[in-house]
């Protein structure tokens, strides 16, 4: 495998050197040869661009209503779903049709990219941050503290995840709805409103998803801290904090990132799911989950209203799954199980 990526020696009199390859370069090489992962990566880049340039791409604003065009559909959709012919309001100004309030579906899907991607990138950061700190403290100072900390994680595991996050969301949404002006929860509430309700979703996801990361980190720290270079660092009197962050963490971060990448689709799904049951982003902020929810209520008459956001969600999850699988294969060849 690695032999192919090494430079060929041209002349015999040149000394035989092998260009030093670090882990990341080698991994990138492996990743590039995985076609599915590359496709996933390209889709994600396109999605990121869509999210950044949503204002330029979307023909309408996400909350622009035109009740005269409620449920309007363009001609090509009527051709695909002939059952809509008798009642459809045809308006070709909407490329994918309009929803029940006369808002352009395409524009809302484009803006919805922002919500899903924000969760996809910030969710893992929160989970990594809490999980790695918790896990490394637990693993590093093993003994009584470790025992207590891991029992706490065990208990949190017994919480039915989705139910817990629903309860948390209900708690956040109502507690911080009308707080006294100037209090801490007031500012948090303001911030949340500014993000269209996304802040609490992030906090909820973060609070319910760090446990796996904590367990993994602890295991990694436990196995790493017995190795010789750590013992050596200890003998020359390096501080605990330095050992942890300079010596142990850089060596274990690879697998942690891989696991987190593989969890991204779950985060995207959690947000969509919360928005689906009405505990997610605040309307009119567009989220694919809430669009699918409202769309599926009109499934019989206007299938396009659920179909297109559903496609967007599925494609995004595909992309992250492909990239995650590719990253795992590239960074952790041993994790592949028995793939040759």
């Amino acid at each position, binding site marked *: 495998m690695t032999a192919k990526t090494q430079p060929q020696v041209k002349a015999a009199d040149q000394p035989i050197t092998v260009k030093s390859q670090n882990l990341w370069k080698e991994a990138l090489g492996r990743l590039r040869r995985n076609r599915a992962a590359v496709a996933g990566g390209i889709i994600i880049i396109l999605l990121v661009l869509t999210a950044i340039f949503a204002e330029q791409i979307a023909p309408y604003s996400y909350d622009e209503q035109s009740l005269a065009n409620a449920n309007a559909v363009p001609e090509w959709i009527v051709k695909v779903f002939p*059952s809509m012919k008798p009642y459809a309001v045809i308006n070709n100004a909407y490329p994918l049709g309009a929803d029940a309030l006369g808002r352009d579906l395409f524009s809302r899907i484009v803006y919805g990219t922002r919500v899903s991607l924000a969760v996809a990138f910030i969710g893992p950061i929160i989970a990594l941050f809490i999980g790695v700190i918790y896990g490394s403290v637990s693993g590093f100072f093993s003994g009584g503290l470790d025992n207590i900390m891991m029992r706490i994680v*065990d*208990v949190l*595991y*017994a*919480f*039915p995840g*989705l*139910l*817990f996050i*629903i*309860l*948390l969301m*209900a*708690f956040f949404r*109502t*507690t911080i*709805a009308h707080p006294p002006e100037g209090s801490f929860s007031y500012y948090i509430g303001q911030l949340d409103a500014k993000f269209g309700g996304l802040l609490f979703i992030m906090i909820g996801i973060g609070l319910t998803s760090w446990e796996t990361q904590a367990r993994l980190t602890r295991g990694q720290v436990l196995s790493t801290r017995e190795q010789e270079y750590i013992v050596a660092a200890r003998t020359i009197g390096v501080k605990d904090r330095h050992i942890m962050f300079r010596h142990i963490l850089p060596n274990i971060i690879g697998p942690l990132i891989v696991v987190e990448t593989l969890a991204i*689709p779950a985060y995207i*799904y959690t947000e*969509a*799911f919360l928005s*689906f*049951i009405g505990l997610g982003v605040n309307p009119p902020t567009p989220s694919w*989950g809430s669009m*699918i*929810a409202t*769309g*599926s209520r009109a*499934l*019989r008459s206007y*299938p396009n209203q*659920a*179909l297109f956001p*559903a*496609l967007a*969600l*599925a494609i995004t*999850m*595909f992309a992250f*799954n*492909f990239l995650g*699988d590719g990253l795992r294969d590239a960074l952790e060849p041993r994790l*592949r*199980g*028995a*793939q*040759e």
Partner: protein
Amino acid sequence: MVAYIIRRLLYMLAVLFVVSGITFALMHAVPGGPFDKEKKLPAEIQANKEKYYHLDDPLYVQYFSYLSQVIVPRITSEAPTLRTDDDYLVTVPIGIYWFKWMNFGPSYSSRSRTVNDIFRDQLPVSFQLGILALLIAIIIGMPLGIMSALNHNKWPDFMGMSVAIFGVSVPTIVLAPLLVWFFGVTLKWLPPTGWGAKPPFVLGLFPRSLGWDYFKYAILPAFVLGFGSAAIIARLTRASLLQVIREDYIRTARAKGLTEQMVINHHALKNGLIPIVTVIGPLFAGLVTGTFIIELVFGIPGLGKYFVTSISNRDYPVIMGTILLYAVFLVAANLVVDIVYGFLDPRIRYE
């Protein structure tokens, strides 16, 4: 072994105690009470209602009286009444006395129903859905994984793994409306909503008849729910089987001259399927607890719907009851898996 199980059961109780405490604290921290309605009740009536349900007691009193109602069995000479605060899940007559155990309390949002009523009528539906979904997951997932592993890096492998990645990537909130639209609305092969079994249930859990009238309602939701898990099982089966196939004892079996079929069926599959058992426990718990999105889309009268509405209604006993029930499912599933694992893999010993 017995000591191990007892220790695990005690540990389970401790976990459930903590779960109940956190849930109780969290739900009481949410502002608003069960009787705060859009149209405000007169203060005396509100106070009266809260007194009736003991909501005017201090929180810790409420919490411990709730726990004692659930945990402590009682023997009284009082025959069971129809009062909503006198509904015990286990009620057995012993002579002139009655043995009563597990009272999960009344539901605040209904005058005549208790949490136990909801458990009796709605839980079986969610449970059946979970079981069927698990069956579908195993029936699709295992053969897919085995096929992929035995044809490693050939086209059946790529096919199988494509199906698997499809299953992981297409979430239930996408698959459910699409299938309803396709099979329920366009083709009209299957009813788009509803459930084919009503209480009373056989043994409190199973439907009375298993005909087409039952399955025509169950196929779509069970498939949607189970498909994602099928993908997980397929990937795991494949990985585990590929690892086993390279073991020395498989080479030995081949060297002995056993037929390929013998090697696969008796040596490879037996060992390769052990890790699958470990995921089936949590998977089942996840399926039973994860049904409510399906229940929402398919209009199934299961437990999940009650949970979501109970939160917005501040229906405290229903919130506590459902979370505790699901938590029991989770821990019990893990315990069962650990025990079964010991039987399947004799190398594992419980101290």
